[in-house]
């Protein structure tokens, strides 16, 4: 039960920049192992695989750690930038 990552993220504070996701997965047919690994390794559980096997991202709960950026740097499958100033996660304790 406590493994449900969204219940943890609910404790966090976010200002979501609606309609401007700061991370996007480029269109693909077969994701690389690195990208598939993110469905498990992303600490915010932002990545998931759809029925056709492609990896999708919903970045609303992103904590901007950069893990996916580093992991997928070689494959070039994702576009990663910081959210616009003031948007994204806002740590209360850090």
């Amino acid at each position, binding site marked *: 039960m406590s493994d449900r990552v969204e219940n943890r993220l609910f*404790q966090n*504070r976010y200002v979501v920049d609606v309609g401007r996701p700061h991370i996007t997965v480029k269109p693909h047919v077969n994701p690389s192992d690195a990208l598939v690994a993110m469905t498990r390794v992303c600490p915010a559980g932002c990545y998931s695989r759809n029925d056709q096997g492609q990896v999708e991202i919903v970045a609303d709960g992103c904590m901007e750690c950069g893990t996916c950026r580093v992991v997928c740097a070689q494959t070039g499958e994702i576009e990663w930038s910081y959210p*616009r100033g003031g948007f994204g996660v806002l740590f*209360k304790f850090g």
Partner: protein
Amino acid sequence: MRIFVCIKQVPDSAQIRVHPVTNTIMRQGVPTIINPYDLFGLEEALRLRDRFGGEVTVMTMGPPMASDSLRKALTYGADRAVLLTDRFFAGSDTLATSYALANLIQKASDNWGKPDIVFCGKQTIDGDTAQVGPGIARRLGLTQLTYVSSIDAIDPSHGTITVRRRADHGVQVLQSRLPAMITMMEGSNEIRRGRIEDALRAASAEVVQWNAAAAGITDLGHCGLRGSPTVVKKVFAPPSREEKATLVGEGAANPTAVANDLITQIFARQPVLEGDLMHAAARH
């Protein structure tokens, strides 16, 4: 146009949690923000200024740290910020708050001229009363236009304004006269990001700070706890709902049977709803 915008620094209520065991409120780390409803008023004010020229003054009553919120309003592009802060205001209810703010607006008018429009948020997210705006309007004799979803026309030189206002079953189109106190509906606009120049200016701008005396408030009997007719006697957490959903339609023969079971249960719990739905269906 000369526009005043009243804002309030509030705790981000989305971050407030009630401890599930002790049933007490957990205050640690709850950040303060500008009351989100105020931002709809601020944005509308900035748009009017951009269109007609003039200036936007943001103001608030609050503790000294409320100047952070005012400074943030400056980064959005407001021209001037005023903070009314004094220990005499502690514990103000809506009546005492509207007294202090009306005086603040009066004093600001003496300094910088009378406003054409005073914007307030529809309500605050901590108090949710929606009463301070109307209170200010009443005290200053401003035209009261609450729950405005758009300003359709405005003529500052003739002092006329046409707005759409949210009513309970539809939208009223109202034509009225300035000066007015307007509260904007949520979703009617989106607060801008200030330009880099606004951010730089705000970083070093002075936030004008007045205490009660500086704002010309001499009758402290109308301020703070003393000036508040209402008294909070008790604060408590709502009881949490323990029981889970009652499952319906288990073992039913087909979807239609499940649906009928469900409808029976719904109307058993909401007996009035059935009549109202019929009523509504008949009207269609």
